[in-house]
């Protein structure tokens, strides 16, 4: 594992407990998406690992180095793309990226900087001042800075917040490219589809607690609800009495019935339902199934935690 977090707690000066004993391990080369509503503790967690915020208690190790006692080695391995677009406006793109490489103790390497800027489609803008760039380009500059010292672990704090759909897809491609290079990526996001599209594992954080961390596919399979929509030949005004046990929903003006079932169950009840539909005299036109999204799972977990 490359990141180990052990019972990490953080209480701010005002008394707000932002992290309530987070324990988490992150494997080398994986993409972990941390989902959570505003104020859940995502940014505090990242800030504490990166050294921006002091941990209250507990331990964080990156590459086996404690982030407090071995901060030089630990931080050398980390790249951080912050949530806000914080850049010195009057610096040239190439200078600000070179500056970050220097800060992290790496010798000058113009070829490396050139490769990073090209990878992020920034090479043509290398002599532009940051203030002249669009919001999307500035976000790329932040990523270029974070990559300038060739980190093993990259933290992306809401990397696609406020960017258009096209740029968001570009970002996903960039992340996929970094993963292919062996970089471990931890990203926080509000966009469930982002986690669904690029993460290997998903963590759900709320109220400073890690509610769940699981392989994305396993999570969806384990918690996923499926829906069967039954389109009828003729519309019905009400659900027949004989089908009351199935908790069906009458939708689309009576021409379709919706049946929800749990894929974890030993029996889904579909065979019996279809038989009973025929016995009730209903003719079927079509069948469709739909799996619940990660968003449904996330909303379910967060509401459960809040209850």
């Amino acid at each position: 594992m490359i990141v180990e977090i052990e019972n990490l707690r953080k209480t701010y000066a005002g008394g707000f407990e932002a992290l309530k004993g987070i324990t988490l391990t992150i494997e080398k080369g994986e993409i972990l998406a941390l989902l959570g509503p505003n104020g859940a503790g995502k940014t505090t967690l990242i800030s504490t690992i990166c050294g921006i915020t002091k941990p209250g208690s507990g331990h964080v190790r990156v590459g086996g180095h404690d982030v407090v006692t071995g901060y030089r080695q630990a931080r050398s391995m980390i790249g951080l793309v912050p949530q806000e677009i914080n850049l010195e406006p009057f610096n040239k793109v190439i200078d600000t990226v070179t500056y970050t490489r220097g800060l992290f103790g790496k010798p000058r390497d113009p070829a490396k900087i050139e490769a990073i800027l090209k990878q992020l489609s920034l090479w043509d803008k290398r002599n532009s001042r940051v203030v002249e760039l669009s919001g999307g380009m500035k976000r790329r500059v932040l990523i270029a800075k974070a990559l300038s010292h060739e980190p093993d672990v990259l933290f992306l704090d809401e990397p696609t917040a406020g960017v258009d759909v096209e740029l968001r897809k570009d970002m996903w491609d960039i992340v996929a490219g970094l993963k292919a290079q062996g970089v471990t990526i931890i990203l926080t996001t509000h966009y469930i589809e982002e986690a669904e599209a690029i993460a290997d594992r998903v963590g759900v954080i709320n109220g400073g607690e890690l509610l769940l961390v699981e392989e994305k596919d396993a999570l969806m399979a384990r918690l996923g609800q499926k829906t069967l929509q039954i389109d009828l030949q003729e519309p019905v005004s009400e659900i027949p009495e004989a089908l009351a046990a199935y908790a069906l929903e009458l939708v689309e003006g009576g021409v379709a019935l919706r049946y929800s079932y749990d894929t974890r169950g030993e029996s889904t009840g579909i065979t019996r339902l279809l038989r009973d539909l025929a016995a009730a005299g209903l003719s079927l036109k079509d069948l469709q199934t739909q799996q619940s999204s990660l968003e449904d799972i996330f909303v379910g977990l967060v509401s459960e935690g809040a209850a």
Partner: protein
Amino acid sequence: MNWSAVWAIYQTEMARFFRTIAQSFISPVISTSLYFVVFGAAIGSRIDEVEGVSYGAFIVPGLIMLSVMTQSLSNASFGIYFPKFIGTMYELLSAPINFLEIVLGFVGAAATKALFIGVVILVTAMMFVDVPIQHPGAMVLFLVLTCLSFSLFGFIIGIWAGNFEQLQLIPLLVVTPLVFLGGSFYSISMLPPIWQNITLFNPVVYLISGFRWSFFGTADVPIGLSLLAIGGFTAICLAAIWWIFKTGWRIRS
């Protein structure tokens, strides 16, 4: 030591200075020339020699000190306040560097800029009056130590300041009056005895006196005391910065 980080900070801070080189260079030349027109020619012509030195030459060390102190303060305080203001402080806090390396980069650059301006003023002054330098080694030492100590002080102000108003507060309301009342343009022996004693509580007096001694060989206070004062001030500022980074005061939550 992460020298690469020190150099990166130093270079970036100096780049900011060179981006506005005309302003950085021309402004002290003009203001020094104005001081000479007003104090040297208009008022100075009515003042006899001070401690055996023409008034025009007498004010040169004070003028240099005035600019060097204010420039050191403003450069260093702005240098560290700006990353706080625009939010790039995260980069310094998450980099593998310690407080000494951050200070060396920022304070080193601020002191270099102030030193540059001090030299520009000296050269400009030499175009107006003959300025003897009896102890050039001591002159350089005092100049460098003043740039350094006031840059350290400015760094502390920059970390403390929560807005641009606070950034200007101490330089304008405390330091500038102390510099003007510290014998920049007069010898404290010209004051009534009671004010001479009160003035000795002004730490700037010791710096200006020592610096002036390096030019003319005369001083308001013993040279040893001047060195002690500037050394002590530097040590206090360094200790304060060490404490700031140890506790994270105003920079790390």
